[in-house]
């Protein structure tokens, strides 16, 4: 008999010992379940990120066979590179536009679809369906629609409007990509908001109405505060996805016209995989990670000021 079992028996008898064994088994099963995710995070997330940081301190051109330690030179170069800061500004603009449009539209749709009407699930499925469509297929189709001689301008011409060259006009290109991306992803946020709206207790809304509040006042003062945890979640995941945006830029604009839609992740791709400057691209990747982490931390810190029940 082990010392631990003796202690268990002395402490509370065989029942407690059995409970501990059960606890250990539960823990083992639980850890076995999370192990694949842990392996994934470590093997596909943390270790590759460690390599990215390591590469950022090197001059690495695989074509020339160069891999030389250069210390902080890539980061020095970052500080003076107008193209990088321009891309970062474009990324912020893209992210801000996308967050405002996506979250507003998702909330509006969720409120409209939070009704007990015949056939409402069909509408919910309709708005959610773009989420499950391949992103490349989605942006390719939109690319044809918003071409200068495409369907959108064809439809506008029918009502006498001479539409712009959506993806090639510096004034419209970024906005067009944002709108295409909003339509693609709004369904997911809509579903999250819908779930949150359905979790708002009906008695609170009823009490508000009994106190004389109208529909808007009830929404603003009762419903909206109660779904702020979901708004926080949606804000964080939408922001991270927007900061990483790549596919629509690659397929629709290749970063143009000029560099109007060159976001930081696309610049990273260009630097690494088109210009073979892998070390500098790694430094850009570290910058993107740091900026995204900082923005997420800011959102997390500020949650206490506006998220319901956060202390």
């Amino acid at each position: 008999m082990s010392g631990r079992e003796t202690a268990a028996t002395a402490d509370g008898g065989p029942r407690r010992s059995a409970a501990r064994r059960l606890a250990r088994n539960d823990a083992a099963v639980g850890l076995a379940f999370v192990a694949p995710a842990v392996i994934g995070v470590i093997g596909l997330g943390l270790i590759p990120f460690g390599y990215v940081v390591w590469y950022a301190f090197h001059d690495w051109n695989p074509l020339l066979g160069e891999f030389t330690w250069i210390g902080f030179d890539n980061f020095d170069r970052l500080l003076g590179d107008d193209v990088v800061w321009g891309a970062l500004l474009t990324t912020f603009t893209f992210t801000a536009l996308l967050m405002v449009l996506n979250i507003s539209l998702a909330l509006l749709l969720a409120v409209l679809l939070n009704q007990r009407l015949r056939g409402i699930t069909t509408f919910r499925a309709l708005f959610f369906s773009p989420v499950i469509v391949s992103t490349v297929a989605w942006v390719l189709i939109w690319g044809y629609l918003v071409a200068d001689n495409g369907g959108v301008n064809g439809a506008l011409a029918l009502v006498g409007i001479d539409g712009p060259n959506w993806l090639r006009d510096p004034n419209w290109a970024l906005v067009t990509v944002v709108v295409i991306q909003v339509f693609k992803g709004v369904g997911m946020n809509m579903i999250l908001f819908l779930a949150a709206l359905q979790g708002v207790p009906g008695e609170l809304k009823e009490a508000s109405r009994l106190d004389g509040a109208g529909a808007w006042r009830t929404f603003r003062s009762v419903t909206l505060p109660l779904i702020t945890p979901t708004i926080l979640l949606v804000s964080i995941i939408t922001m991270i996805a927007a900061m990483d945006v790549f596919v629509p830029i690659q397929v629709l604009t290749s970063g143009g016209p000029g560099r109007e839609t060159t976001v930081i992740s696309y610049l990273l791709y260009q630097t690494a995989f088109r210009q073979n400057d892998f070390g500098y691209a790694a430094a850009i990747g570290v910058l993107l990670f740091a900026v995204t982490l900082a923005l997420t931390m800011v959102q997390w810190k500020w949650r206490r000021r506006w998220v319901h029940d956060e202390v």
Partner: protein
Amino acid sequence: MKPQLRIRTPRAVATATTLAVALTLTSCSSGGDDASADGPVQLRMTTWSSNEEHQAVLQEIADAYVEAHPDLVSGVEFDAITDGTYVSAVTTQIAGGDTPDLMWITEAYAEEFVSSGVLADLRPVFVETEGYQVEDLLPAATELWRGEEGLYAYPFSNSPFGVYVNTDLLAAAGQPDPRELIADGAWTWDRLAEVASQTAQAEGVAGIQLSVDDPYALPNDAITPLGLAWGARPWSEDGTTCAYTSPESVAFFDWYHSQVYDHGTFPAIGETVDFASGQAAFRIGQLSLSAGLGDTFGWDFLPLPEGPAGTVPVMGQAGIGVLANGEHPDVAADFLAHFTNPENAAKLARFFPPPRESLLTTETLRAAAPTLTDEQLEDTLINPARSATTKVGHPRLSGMVDTIRASMDSLWTPEADVEAVLADVCSAIEPSLAE
């Protein structure tokens, strides 16, 4: 009441998790082939064609080599990368240590790959291989692939650019047959543009579609080469000085800009057209395009017209190189000598116009383009192949293509100041040229 359970982390599970992570990482980091192992090796060649007929002829040639050298090679894999990211994908493979043994390379990147030292010198193997007939290779075809002393790739495909014309559209628009213009000595870029513009206006189609679907995303690849007929080049012969601002370049881009925005000859940026669907009067293209045209409309294939600097045949070229830091460069070079010997070059000529003088015949090339007449083959393939120039490359092209595209984008508006934009292009690429 349930007892409060305190969950401890069982050491066994932690150990198992650690082991699993370690095993996963170990299995990820271990290579596929053991280079030090004896016995036959598996070769891999990256290509950008997944065409089944192409793959069949490549495999047929490879299988014969494997059969003849079972102790040397166990098989040859043709790895098709077809999504438009070919160069990036292969470079990434090299960066990741998964270097292919052999690779296809386009002419635009020839200088970059040859000068980088990433390719093995093939001349010794070609010279030593019995019956290879190195002297049969056209000097014009191998020019790009020669280094200081060696030959760094075999230019397996040499396909001059020509002009496809939808003769039905021209006839409907009351325009002359381009063959008559050629016979009259009036086959010039100006005349071609005039016919294209008038056909476009009369028939509601596009005038001239360029060689790629979105030429404005690849201006250095699809637009600048037309300027060779003006004597326009992107940079000097030695690659150190920008030439976008030369009088010839300005004249060419001025002409092109005017044709787009004043005459509607070329589709403007953002417009999509498809010659094969009858949406354009002309298309700049190569031999392989003829296979997809069918007989839904009448068409012809003509040589490039004359510009202010004369008629300059432009050739699209592709080479096969052996990666010097691949696992089996010697075996790969020996395989390539077999793959491109006169007998197998004739087999490849079914799809790829060969670089061998002995194979530049209508008889050989008829198999590659059965829809073309002997006259078309002579005019657009055989004669230009002996003297054609290739698109202008540069040892640091990869680092400049996106910069050129970005700085040239402002040219594609009706009110653009051509000379000022070209000056901006030069400012943007001069640091790279000066490296």
